[in-house]
């Protein structure tokens, strides 16, 4: 019997608490698989956010720290400065990273902290009940934009990957999506590169992952995959926004 696919040992056996069809679970799996494939799981310290992924410390099969809302990049900075030979990552949602934790992520990038951030953008606050996120699309209905997000009142969606790519200390910044098998395979490739950039001490790396929230988007999970494809990707285009300098020169 040949195994074509099995659950990675990078994950614990704990069942995810996420809603049915929420693609956080796919992203967890990809990160865990990459840590195992790079053979760094035993020297990895992960930092969890506040938000839907608040229990991520129960799922990643490595040492984990729970941070205060938005502060994961600062916590990861403290860990990495003490243990520069360990692999340190943060796993953050759009409220955690792009609202309350904007200062921490910008300055971690600016310092070129040798950490990797997995930024999950699902355009809504999940844990607290479907409120508007900084990444909520214009016109998107949430519990706090019941008539759709209007720029006049609530401003514009924040394009985090593009913004952070302008920062010198950011070595690798990319955006991927997990709405199809093809995009999931690509997402894993990109997440692996982000960790490789950290292992090569090249600077800060971040992967923004477009993810679904069927519950708060008010759709069934397959519809949510289509909504991500049709509504989110046009606003948040996929691709690499920053690659390490030497790769740019060789390109």
């Amino acid at each position: 019997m040949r195994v074509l696919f099995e659950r990675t040992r990078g994950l614990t056996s704990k069942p995810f608490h996420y809603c049915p069809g929420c693609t956080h679970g796919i992203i967890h799996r990809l990160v865990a698989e990459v840590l195992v494939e790079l053979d760094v799981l035993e020297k990895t310290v992960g930092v969890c956010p506040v938000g839907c992924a608040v229990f991520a410390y129960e799922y990643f099969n490595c040492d984990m720290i729970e941070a205060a809302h938005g502060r994961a990049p600062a916590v990861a900075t403290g860990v990495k400065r003490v243990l520069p030979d360990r692999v340190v990552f943060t796993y953050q949602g759009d409220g955690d990273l792009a609202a309350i934790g904007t200062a921490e992520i910008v300055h971690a990038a600016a310092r070129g902290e040798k950490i990797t951030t997995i930024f999950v953008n699902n355009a809504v606050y999940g844990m607290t009940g479907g409120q508007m996120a900084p990444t909520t699309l214009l016109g998107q209905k949430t519990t706090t934009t019941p008539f759709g997000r209007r720029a006049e009142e609530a401003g514009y969606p924040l394009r985090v990957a593009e913004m952070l790519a302008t920062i010198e200390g950011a070595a690798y910044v990319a955006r991927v999506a997990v709405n199809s098998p093809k995009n999931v395979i690509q997402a894993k490739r990109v997440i692996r590169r982000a960790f490789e950039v950290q292992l090569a001490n090249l600077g800060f790396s971040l992967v923004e992952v477009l993810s679904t929230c069927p519950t708060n988007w008010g759709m069934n999970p397959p519809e949510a995959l289509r909504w991500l494809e049709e509504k989110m990707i046009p606003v948040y285009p996929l691709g690499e926004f920053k690659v390490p300098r030497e790769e740019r020169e060789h390109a």
Partner: protein
Amino acid sequence: MPRVLMKGNEAFGEGAIRAGCRYFFGYPITPQSELPHYLARRLPEVGGVYLQAESEVAAINMVYGAAAAGARVMTSSSSPGISLMQEGISYLAGAELPCVIVNVMRGGPGLGNIAPAQSDYFQAVKGGGHGDYRLLCLAPSSVQEILDLMGLAFDLADKYRNPVMVLGDGILGQMMEPVELPPYSGELELPPKPWATTGTAGRGTRNIINSLYIEPEELEAVNLRLRAKYQRMEEEEKRWETYLLEEAELVLVAFGTMARVARAAVERLREEGIAAGLIRPITLYPFPDAPFHAAFSRARAFLVVEMNLGQMVEDVRLTVEGRCPVHFYGRTGGVVPTVAEVVNFAKEVWQKL
């Protein structure tokens, strides 16, 4: 031992280095700036890391990360900056991470001013952040004592896996005094931290640093365990100094800089024939009750003197429990009571007895 002239703010830094602290994360604020200036030069000399964070909020969370990684780590700030750190301090206490936080207090509330004050006493000893937690809180009153207490602060932080606050003020931070440097031979033998998140290699099991407990019974159990730890601190860690307390009928109570003024006032009162004495709490939490109990047999009144409008006086009243009148004299906003003011107020109290 060599005697050198040192500024209080520098003594916080040198004391930390000699205690094995190799990591400092902070954000500039007056009147503690000489402390980060000193460590920015000194830490690289001993293979440490000085990092200027983007805010006090980030700084305290970097401390959280470094403490989780098992390091001796500190931050310092002054009143408004310490307010910004409160969320992080609550998380440090909840996750039981050892670290040292120096507050060189200035006038408040709000932006206040940069003059010396003691108005963060409540914040330091009564919680400060959210939740049912305590900080060990030390209050030096000389540059020498700053050096000595920094070593103790790191030892206590590790012993109890708890943040320790060292409370100074603008005068203490800025003043220069001759000090004897504690012995120091470079690397120290520090206690092992098997709970630290350093990667599972060589350990097998996962370490998790966390303060989230969704089940109420589980969180209650955590709080009860924390309380048992605080009770152990109360049994083992109370520290104080007394001056002419034996035979004292009027007992002055003051901490930090204010205790130096109060001590001079006690001497003047004695010259005028008033049997005054002084209790100087060195630990503000746990609050030292023993010297009060020792004073009850003779004391006719306590006079608490602070650079605020009456904060530690509440702990004195809780300790005295109505057995004796407790009076208060304080100035605030960065005004420091003079010896003459304290003496005059003490004499008024004395005459009414």
